């Protein structure tokens, strides 16, 4: 196990180098560059050339790319992401941290809800496979799978925010007049988070249910479950204790794809409901061409994604020895 883990960790190194290198090079190859605004479209310089040169030396931009890359990497390792470009510079790390907090809790709630609903639904579908009810559920799940998240979000909004019900707030995380702390504040936050969480969970539900159903169908055909039924073990116990223990393996593999979402967040939902999360931050930084923020966000997301895959692999290996041997 230890040797396997070490090998698996070593495999992350080239990925990490590739990730940071690509991010760094993209930012250097991007159109414009830090001094584009100092030069007229006609090619005449608004600022004396010596001053530009002095600035380049000051910022270290005249050094070879490889030196710049290593320097950037060193600062990144100490979480020094620099400041945002723009009129009022803010440390990038602070913005990323604030956005990360919002996204993480939002996504965690959604993923929990998604798994909590999707896995039992998939198990139920597998247990009742072929019945009319199961077929109807399957068809409904297919339609939900085809529904764009944006349509789902606008529909929910129309129903609960501006439509006949009008019970939930439409945008943001806090009402301006609500207190920050205490029960009232928590209730306010809950109200604001309901629709985004529901939206993300519903969008992911069909995939999870389908995965769980497929995994369970494979298991249910096996003799040990027939034997369990013959011994008179109740169906619920057979499904959720005997079969699910093995049938859940493919879902654990899915964890690797879910973890990065805990960090990226859903750009769509965050934008739709105006939530100050990572997705929103990324989209805004990209539109504003705020390269330090873009670089920070993409490296953070990439590292999180790698960690997710690592976690999924380790959990899978703990559950199933055969994976390790492969």
């Amino acid at each position, binding site marked *: 196990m230890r040797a396997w883990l070490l090998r698996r960790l070593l495999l992350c190194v080239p990925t990490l180098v590739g990730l940071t290198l690509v991010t760094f090079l993209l930012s250097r190859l991007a*159109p414009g560059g830090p001094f584009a605004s100092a030069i007229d479209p006609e090619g005449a310089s608004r600022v004396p050339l010596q001053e530009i040169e002095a600035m380049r030396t000051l910022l270290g931009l005249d050094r070879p790319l490889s030196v710049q890359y290593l320097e950037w990497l060193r600062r990144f390792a100490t979480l020094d992401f620099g400041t945002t470009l723009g009129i009022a510079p803010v440390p990038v790390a602070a913005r990323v941290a604030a956005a990360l907090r919002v996204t993480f809790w939002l996504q965690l709630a959604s993923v929990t809800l998604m798994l909590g609903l999707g896995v039992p639904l998939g198990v139920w579908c597998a247990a009742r496979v072929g019945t009319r009810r199961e077929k109807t559920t399957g068809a409904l799940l297919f339609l939900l799978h*085809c529904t764009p998240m944006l349509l789902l979000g*606008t529909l929910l909004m*129309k129903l609960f925010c*501006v439509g006949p019900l009008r019970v939930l707030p439409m945008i943001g995380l806090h009402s301006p007049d609500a207190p920050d702390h205490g029960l009232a504040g928590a209730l306010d936050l809950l109200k604001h988070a309901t629709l985004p969480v529901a939206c993300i969970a519903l969008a992911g539900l069909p995939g999870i249910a389908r995965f769980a159903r497929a995994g369970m169908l494979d298991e249910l055909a096996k003799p040990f479950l027939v034997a369990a039924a013959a011994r008179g073990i109740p169906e619920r116990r057979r499904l959720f204790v005997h079969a699910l223990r093995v049938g859940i393996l493919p879902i654990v593999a899915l964890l690797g794809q879910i973890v990065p979402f805990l960090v990226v967040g859903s750009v769509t939902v965050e934008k739709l409901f105006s939530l100050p999360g990572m997705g929103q931050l*990324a989209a805004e930084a990209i*539109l504003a*061409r705020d390269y330090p923020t873009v670089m920070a966000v*993409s490296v953070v997301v990439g590292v999180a994604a790698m960690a997710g895959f690592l976690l999924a692999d380790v959990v899978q290996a703990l559950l199933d020895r055969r994976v390790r041997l492969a």
Partner: protein
Amino acid sequence: MRRGAILGAFALVAAAALAPLLAHELPLAGRFGGELRFPVLRCLTGEDRLWFALLAALCAAFAGAARLRRRSRAAVAAPAAGALLFALLACCGGGRPRLDELDWRATRAAGRAAVVPTPVGFGPLESDDVAIAAGVLPAPPSARHWLGTDGSARDVAARLLHGMRVSLATAVAATAVALGLGLLVGLACGAWRGFVDLALMRVVEVFLCFPQLFLVLVVFAYLPHGRTTLALLLGVVGWTTTAQIARAEFLRLHGEEFVVAARALGVPAWRLALRHLLPNALEPVAVAATFGVAGALLAEFTLSFLGFGVPPPTPSLGQMLAEGKGVLETAPWIALLPGTVIFLVVVAINALGESLRRRPAPRRRVA
């Protein structure tokens, strides 16, 4: 199920291709001062003609399939006639609109023309002066505007039709790019195995690490925005699935007897790859590509909602949604209809993919 899926998907492609005939600021036909003219047909753009050519090819394929299956004469003749018609339509166009045609409503009102307008009657970029004069914007659905207008008095039905066509074109182009790249990489993995295989699969893993949409967004930060970039990017991001499937197929085929036999006969490597391996690996790849189109469509919709799509004057479904969100209370149709259109297209495409996936492979059918 399968027939329904094919027909549904075809109907949507046809609606996209025929968009200029369904919604255009010029009339379909008219007698202007005694002269019979077909303004829409005369003014078709290159893109319109490309769409007609595509539709003609599709119809021809349908006719060919019906002929192969020895269907009735009518089942062969109808799509063949369609193919001919669309091929003819693809040859029209290239002209410029004239003033009396652009102003056909006034010309008709003055009694100087007898005009057959398009069914929708408005182009996607055209602001309706009458709706502006009525003072209620966005105007609710009416006989004049079937699905109402948006805040700039543009007809929502026309914008939906033309927006869907932009989305479909982008999605199909993206899938084509993904397919090409994926097949190439899959072929390389299957042909050289060993180190090449290992290295390329690591690259695939790096790509899989990122949520796709995020990857596109990040790369977008460093590139000029536009339709071509969008299609290319979506393709470059989406190639991994195709690559994995193609690789698995090639590896499986390598052990098959007919490949061993071909090798023993001295068939050169390129010929082995193109004539023996590729055709046999195409089916699962085609299924994946179908689902890929649906995925690209959804991604394009989201990106244009976020403001990274086609630049503004061109109608785009995501942009319509972004604009409609602000008036969700008074004019919900603007925000809800684009999503519904995407939903319908995705349902049709996914149903098609699902039925293709369930279809028993030809080899198994013979056995």
